C-alpha cells in the first residue's frame, strides 16, 4: 500500500497496516525532518523494522541530498539478517509498484567469521582465529614478500578483489551475508573486504553495534561514513552496556604473564632484525622523528589494531622521543609491566581514579602521562615494522598498551579497581585490575555528534527519559507506542503469594527460604499442567537457578513437572544451551510440550524469540536485579548519582525492570501470537516497579491481578488460554488493530492514531 505520511509518499509492502506502525512512521519522519535524535519504543511484533525501513527509504528517495545513508545497527547476526530480508521485501515491492528497478545498494556487514570464503580460513571455529589467519594472509608486508617469493601463501580472494574489485562498484541490490558470499565466490573476490569497501557508497548498511560504538573497530570500519546518515540502533535497551563494555579493560595476572612473553618476543625480534635488517628500524625511527603519526602508511588490511580511544581524543602530534626507538619502547613497556605486576600484589581492595593512578605511576617508576598516551599507537607501528604476522598472539601486550592509552587519556568517567581475590573465594588469590568505564555517553558521544539523526528504538525502553540522561543527548522526539489489540493477547499476572499465603520474592533475605522455593516450584508445576506447548521460565541469576533447580530436584517437584512436560535448562556453555534450545523447540513442535529454564540477562533472554507455541507462557521468578555487591557496579551507581542525578535505586530498578520486560516480551511476537506473562514476585506490584514496565505491558495489568496466589493465577490463566484458543481471523482485527488504506484515511481513525503515541 502507498501511504501519505505528512506529505511523504511511503511504499509499505503489505496490504494492511497496524495503526501503531503509522503512528511510528509519523514520529520518525518528524525526527528526520528536525535532523535530530529520537527515542522510540514500540512493542515487539508490531512491525517496527519494516516501518523504519519503509519510511527511511522513502525519505532517502524523496530527499536524496538530505539523507544519504541509513546505518542500521542491530545486536545479533540473525537480527541483522532479518533486517536485510525485510529490506529485500520492501525493495521487491518498490520494483513491483513502480515497475522500475531502483538503484539502491544495501548490504550487511559482519565479522570475517561470517563472511570469509577462503576454504582454510573459514573452517576455523572462532572469530579470533579467523581474524588472525586472515591477517597473516593479507597483511601488506606479506603481500609484498609474496611478490619476491611466490611460494608464500596469500589469500587469492583478497588479491583478486584488490586488483579488480575496487574499480567496479558492487551492483545495486540487496546483499545479505550469504548473498555477499555467493557474489564473492562467483567473482573470486573476498566478500569481507568487498563489504567493507562497499559500505562507503551503499545506501543502506546493516551491521552490529560494535562497528559504530567500539572505537577499536569503529575507527577502521566506519570512519568515512557520511555525516548525512541516519543511524538506527535497534534493540537498543542495552546500549549503555555495549558502550561501557567497549571502553573497559580487565587485567589479570595471566594477562601480565602473557604480556611478559609478548614483550620478550618483541625484544628478540628486534635483536634479530637489527642484525639482518637494521635499516628497517632506522627508517621507522626517522619517520617517527619527522612526526609522521604512523611510521608506515597503513593499508586497509593492516589496520587491525586501532586506537582504543575515541578519534577526537587522539593526539595529533609526533610520538615523544622517549619511546621512539624500538628498544626504548620495549624497555618502557617492561617498566610499565613491572609496575602493573606490583600493583596486582595487593592484599586488599584498592579503588582509585585515573589521575591518582597516573600520579602513582609517575612517583614509582617515573612514567609520564604523555608517552603512555602514545602507547597503543607506538605498539601498532612497531608490530607493523617487525612484520608480525599473527597479531592474535600479541593480544596481551595490545591490551596492556590500550589500557595505558585509555588511562592516560580520560581523567573522568573511569575508575580503577584492584581486587586481590573474588568475593566468594577469599582464600584463593586471583588479583584483577578492573579499568572500567562508568559513563556510557563517552563511547556514544561521537556518534551523536557526527550523524545528523540517531534513532534509538526497542520494544522495551521504559522509562524513556532515562536513556537521554545516561547517554547524555537531547532527543527531539521521545515516544512510546502501545499495541492496539483486537483481543488482549497478553495476560500479565503478578503472583505475589503461594497457596499457603507465603509471600513470593527473590529478595536476598528470603532467597534460601524453603517455602518460597517450594511455592515457586508449585507455580511452575501447576502451569505446566495447563499451558499448552512451551513455557519459558527466567531466573534472576545463574547461581540462583542452580540452587532452585537442585532443591526442586530434592523435593521431587521436577519429577512431577516431567509428567507434564520435558525440562530443558540453560547452562553456561553456549553450545550446550543451543542444543537444549533446539530440543526444546522440537519438543514444542511435536506436541510433547517443554519447559525451558533460563536466566535473565543470559544469552537466551537477549537473543532468542519464543514465537507462538514456543512460548505460551513466560514466568519470571523474582526481580532480575543486577548483583549489587559488585564494586564496579557500586562505582557506576555513585558516578550516575554524582554526574546525572540518578538515584541508585532508580537505576537499579530501571535496570531490573528492563531485563524483566525483555524476558517476558520474548513470548509475544505479534498480534496473532498470545502468551501469559507471569511475574512471580510480590515486589512487581509496587508502583515504582510496575511503572517502569513498558506501557504496552503495563496497561494490561489490572488491579485485580496485582497480588495473586498461585491458584488464582492458574484460574485466570485457564480462562485466558481458553479464550485465546478460539480461532482468530483477520476479519476480527480489521478496523481495530489492522487497517486497510481506506480505514487508515478516515478522519476518525486518524484521531485515534494520535493517541497511540505517548509522548513524554
Amino acid at each position, binding site marked *: 500500500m502507498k501511504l501519505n505520511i505528512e506529505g511523504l509518499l511511503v511504499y509499505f509492502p503489505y*496490504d*494492511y497496516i*497496524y495503526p501503531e506502525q503509522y503512528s511510528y512512521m509519523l514520529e520518525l519522519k518528524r525526527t528526520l525532518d528536525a535532523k535530530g535524535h529520537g527515542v522510540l519504543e514500540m512493542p515487539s511484533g508490531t512491525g517496527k523494522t*519494516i516501518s523504519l525501513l519503509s519510511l527511511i527509504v522513502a525519505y532517502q528517495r524523496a530527499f536524496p541530498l538530505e539523507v544519504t545513508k541509513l546505518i542500521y545497527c542491530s545486536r*545479533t*547476526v*540473525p537480527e541483522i*539478517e*532479518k533486517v536485510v530480508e*525485510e529490506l529485500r521485501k520492501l525493495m521487491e515491492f518498490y520494483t513491483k509498484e513502480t515497475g522500475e528497478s531502483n538503484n539502491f545498494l544495501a548490504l550487511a556487514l559482519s*565479522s570475517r*567469521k561470517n563472511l570469509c570464503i577462503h576454504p582454510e580460513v573459514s*573452517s576455523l571455529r572462532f572469530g*579470533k582465529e579467523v581474524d588472525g589467519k586472515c591477517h597473516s594472509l593479507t597483511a601488506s608486508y606479506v603481500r609484498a614478500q609474496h611478490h619476491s617469493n611466490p611460494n608464500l601463501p596469500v589469500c587469492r580472494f583478497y588479491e583478486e578483489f584488490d586488483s579488480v574489485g575496487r574499480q567496479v562498484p558492487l551492483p545495486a541490490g540487496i546483499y545479505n551475508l*550469504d548473498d555477499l558470499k555467493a557474489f564473492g565466490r562467483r567473482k573470486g573476490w573476498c566478500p569481507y573486504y568487498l563489504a567493507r569497501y562497499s559500505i562507503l557508497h551503499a545506501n543502506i548498511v546493516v551491521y*552490529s553495534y*560494535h562497528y559504530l560504538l*567500539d572505537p577499536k573497530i569503529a575507527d577502521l570500519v566506519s570512519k568515512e561514513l557520511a555525516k548525512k546518515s541516519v543511524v538506527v540502533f535497534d534493540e537498543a535497551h542495552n546500549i549503555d552496556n555495549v558502550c561501557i*563494555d*567497549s571502553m573497559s579493560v*580487565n*587485567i589479570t595476572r595471566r*594477562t601480565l604473564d602473557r604480556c611478559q612473553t609478548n614483550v620478550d618476543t618483541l625484544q628478540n625480534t628486534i635483536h634479530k632484525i637489527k642484525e639482518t635488517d637494521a635499516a628497517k628500524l632506522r627508517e621507522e625511527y626517522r619517520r617517527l622523528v619527522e612526526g609522521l603519526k604512523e611510521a608506515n602508511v597503513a593499508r586497509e588490511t593492516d589496520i587491525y589494531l586501532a586506537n582504543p580511544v575515541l578519534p577526537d581524543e587522539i593526539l595529533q602530534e609526533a610520538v615523544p622521543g622517549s619511546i621512539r626507538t624500538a628498544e626504548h619502547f620495549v624497555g618502557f613497556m617492561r617498566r610499565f609491566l613491572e609496575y602493573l605486576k606490583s600493583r596486582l600484589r595487593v592484599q586488599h581492595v584498592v579503588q582509585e581514579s585515573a589521575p591518582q593512578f597516573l600520579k602513582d605511576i609517575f612517583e614509582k617508576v617515573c612514567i609520564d602521562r604523555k608517552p603512555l598516551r602514545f602507547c597503543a599507537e607506538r605498539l601498532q607501528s612497531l608490530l607493523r615494522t617487525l612484520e608480525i604476522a599473527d597479531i592474535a598472539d600479541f*593480544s596481551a601486550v595490545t*591490551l596492556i598498551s590500550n589500557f595505558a592509552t585509555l588511562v592516560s587519556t580520560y581523567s573522568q568517567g573511569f575508575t580503577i579497581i584492584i581486587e586481590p581475590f573474588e568475593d566468594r*573465594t577469599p582464600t584463593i588469590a586471583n588479583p*584483577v585490575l*578492573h579499568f*572500567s568505564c562508568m559513563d556510557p555517553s563517552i563511547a556514544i558521544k561521537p556518534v551523536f555528534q557526527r550523524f545528523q539523526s540517531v534513532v534509538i528504538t526497542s520494544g522495551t525502553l521504559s522509562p524513556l527519559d532515562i536513556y537521554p540522561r545516561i547517554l547524555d543527548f537531547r532527543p527531539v522526539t521521545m515516544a512510546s507506542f502501545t499495541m492496539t489489540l483486537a483481543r488482549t493477547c497478553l495476560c500479565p499476572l503478578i503472583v505475589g503469594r503461594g497457596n499457603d499465603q507465603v509471600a513470593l520474592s527473590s529478595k536476598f533475605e528470603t532467597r534460601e527460604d524453603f517455602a518460597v522455593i517450594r511455592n515457586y516450584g508449585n507455580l511452575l508445576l501447576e502451569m505446566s499442567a495447563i499451558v499448552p506447548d512451551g513455557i519459558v521460565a527466567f531466573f534472576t541469576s545463574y547461581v540462583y537457578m*542452580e*540452587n532452585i*533447580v*537442585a532443591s526442586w*530436584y*530434592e523435593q*521431587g517437584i521436577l*519429577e*512431577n513437572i*516431567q*509428567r*507434564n*512436560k*520435558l525440562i530443558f*535448562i540453560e547452562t553456561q556453555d*553456549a553450545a*550446550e*544451551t543451543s*542444543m537444549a*534450545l*533446539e530440543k526444546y523447540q*522440537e*519438543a514444542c513442535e511435536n506436541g*510433547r510440550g517443554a519447559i525451558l529454564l533460563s536466566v535473565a540477562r543470559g*544469552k537466551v533472554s537477549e*537473543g532468542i*524469540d519464543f514465537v507462538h507455541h514456543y512460548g505460551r507462557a513466560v514466568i519470571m521468578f523474582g526481580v532480575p536485579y543486577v548483583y549489587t555487591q*559488585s564494586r*564496579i557496579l557500586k562505582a557506576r551507581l555513585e558516578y550516575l548519582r554524582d554526574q546525572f542525578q540518578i538515584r541508585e535505586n532508580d537505576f537499579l530498578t530501571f535496570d531490573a525492570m528492563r531485563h524483566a520486560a525483555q524476558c517476558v516480551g520474548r513470548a509475544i511476537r*505479534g498480534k496473532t501470537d498470545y502468551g501469559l506473562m507471569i511475574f512471580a514476585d510480590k515486589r512487581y506490584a509496587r508502583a515504582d516497579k510496575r511503572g517502569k514496565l513498558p506501557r504496552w505491558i503495563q496497561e494490561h495489568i489490572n488491579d485485580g491481578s496485582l497480588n495473586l496466589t498461585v491458584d488464582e493465577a492458574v484460574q485466570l490463566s485457564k480462562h485466558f488460554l481458553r479464550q485465546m484458543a478460539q480461532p482468530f481471523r*483477520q476479519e476480527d482485527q480489521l478496523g481495530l488493530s489492522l487497517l486497510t488504506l481506506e480505514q487508515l484515511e478516515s478522519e476518525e481513525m486518524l484521531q485515534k492514531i494520535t493517541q497511540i503515541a505517548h509522548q513524554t
Partner: protein
Amino acid sequence: MTSLSEEVLLVVKKVRQKKQDGTLYLMAERIAWGPEGKDRFTVSHLYADIRCQKISPDGKAKVQLQLVLHTGESTTFHFANESTALKDREAAKELLQQLLPKFKKKANKELEEKNRMLQEDPVLFQLYKDLVVSQVISAEEFWANRSGGINNTDPSPYNNKQEVGISGAFLADIRPQTDGCNGLRYNLTADIIESIFRTYPAVKQKYSENVPHNLTEKEFWTRFFQSHYFHRDRINTGTQDIFSECAKQDEKGLKTLVTQGVKNPLVDLQSLEDKTLDEGYGICTTQPSTSNANKSVKDSSNSAIIKRFNHHSAMVLAAGSRRGELASDQASETSSTDGNSRDSDFFQPPVKKVKLQEAIEFEDLQRENRPKTVPLNLKKSDRYAHGPVPLQSQQYTTSQDIINSVNYIRHEMASYKPSLTQVLSSTAATSAIAALSPGGVLMQGGAQQAINQMVPTEVQGELKHLYVAAGELLRHFWSCFPVNTLFLEEKVIKMKSNLERFQMTKLHPFKEKIQRQYLSTNVSF
C-alpha cells in the same frame, strides 16, 4: 496328551496344586504339573504364555510360587516338601527366571500383534469377546486359525503408525518405598524397564552384557538404583560401579550432540554475537575460573543435575520421536564427519532462509493469497452423510421366461378343476382371510421393513454378533474336515462341544430373551 518326548529340565516332587499333591516338571518350552500317581499333566503352561512369576515372602509358612499368565489367569504351586521346600522353590524360580525372558520377547511381540489386531478390528474384538472371554473356545484356538494372518500380513501399513513416546517422568514413577527395615523398595514394571532401555541405550548394553552371566536381573537393577548414575546429584565415589561407564558414554553422547551443533541458525547462541569483545575487554569478563578446584561440591552436583535433565529430556525426545531415524542418523553422521564444515555450508542456507522468512513474516498484514474457497453449505446433511444406496443385485427375468410362465399359468387355469371335497368351511376361510389381511394375526409384522424398526438396535447388534460368532465357530468346525489325523479328530470333537456350548451359553439365553420380550415372534434357531 503329549506323545512327543521333551527335555525335562527340572523335576520337583511334592508340589501341591489345588490341594492335590503332585510333581512339577520344568521342560524346555513349558511348565507342567501332574497329580501324583497319574501320568497326565493337569496343568501345563507354555513359557511364552506366562507373564510373570510371583513368590510368597520368605517369612511365610507356605512356600508358594505363582505363575500369572497373559490371559490374567494364575496358577499357584505350593511346595510341600517340608525340608527342602524353600530350596525347591528357589531352584524352580531361578530356572524360570532364566527361561521366561527367552520366551518373553517372542510372546510379547505376538501379544502386541494380537492386541493391535484386536484394537484395529472391532468385529474381531467383538468376536474375541464373544468366543474367548465367554470361554466358548480358548484364546489359543481363536488365534490358531488367524496366526497365519498375524505373521503373513504385510507389516508395512502398520509401520507408519505413530510411535508411542516415553513419559518424561518414567523415572519418577519408580518412587522408592521404604520396606520397613532400613531398605528401599523400587517397583519396576516391564514398561519402565523398556523406557529405561529406550532412553538410555547404554544401560541396555550393560544389561545385555551382564545379565544373566554376571548378575541376576534383580542384582542388576539393585545396583542400578544404587549407582551414582541414577542419583546424579551424588558425586561419583567408586569406580567399580558398572554404570560409571554409562555415565561416560552419556557424556560422550551429549558432547557429540553438542558438537554436531544446531540446524536452526536462529537458535545457535554461539554465532549469535557478531563481534565478541576480545579477551580482557568489557565489564564482567572475569568469570570464575572454570577449573573444578574452586568449585564447591555442591556447585558441581548442581550442574550435574542440570546436565542430567538436559540429557534426559533430549534422550526421551529422541527415543520418542525419532526411533526409526536414529540408526540412519548415526550412519550419516559418521560418514559426514570429515567434510563437516563443507556440508554445513551447503545445507545451511535453505534452512536459514526458511527460518528467516518465517521470522519476518507478518501473516495478518498480508491479504490472504489463497484462492478463495466456497464453504460447503449443506441443506440436508443427512442426505450427504448417507449417500446414494448402491444398487442391489436383482434377479432379472428374461421375456422368454415371462412368456413361458404366462403360458403355463394360462394352461393351469384352463385345466383347473376344483375338488369340492376338500374345501374349507366358509368360517375357516373368512378367519384365514382375516388373518392374512393387513392387521391380521399372521400379518402383524406388516411389511418386511417393519422388522427393522420393530426390533431395537441392540438386539439386532447382538444377533449380528451371534451370527458372526456362530459363523466363526462353524468355520473352525468345518476346517477340520476331512478328518485324517488324530489331532483333527480331537479338534472336531472339541469343536462340536464348543458349538454345543455356544448354543447353550449364547444362543439359548438370547432366544429366551427374545421370546420373553417379543412373544408374538416365532423364534427358532
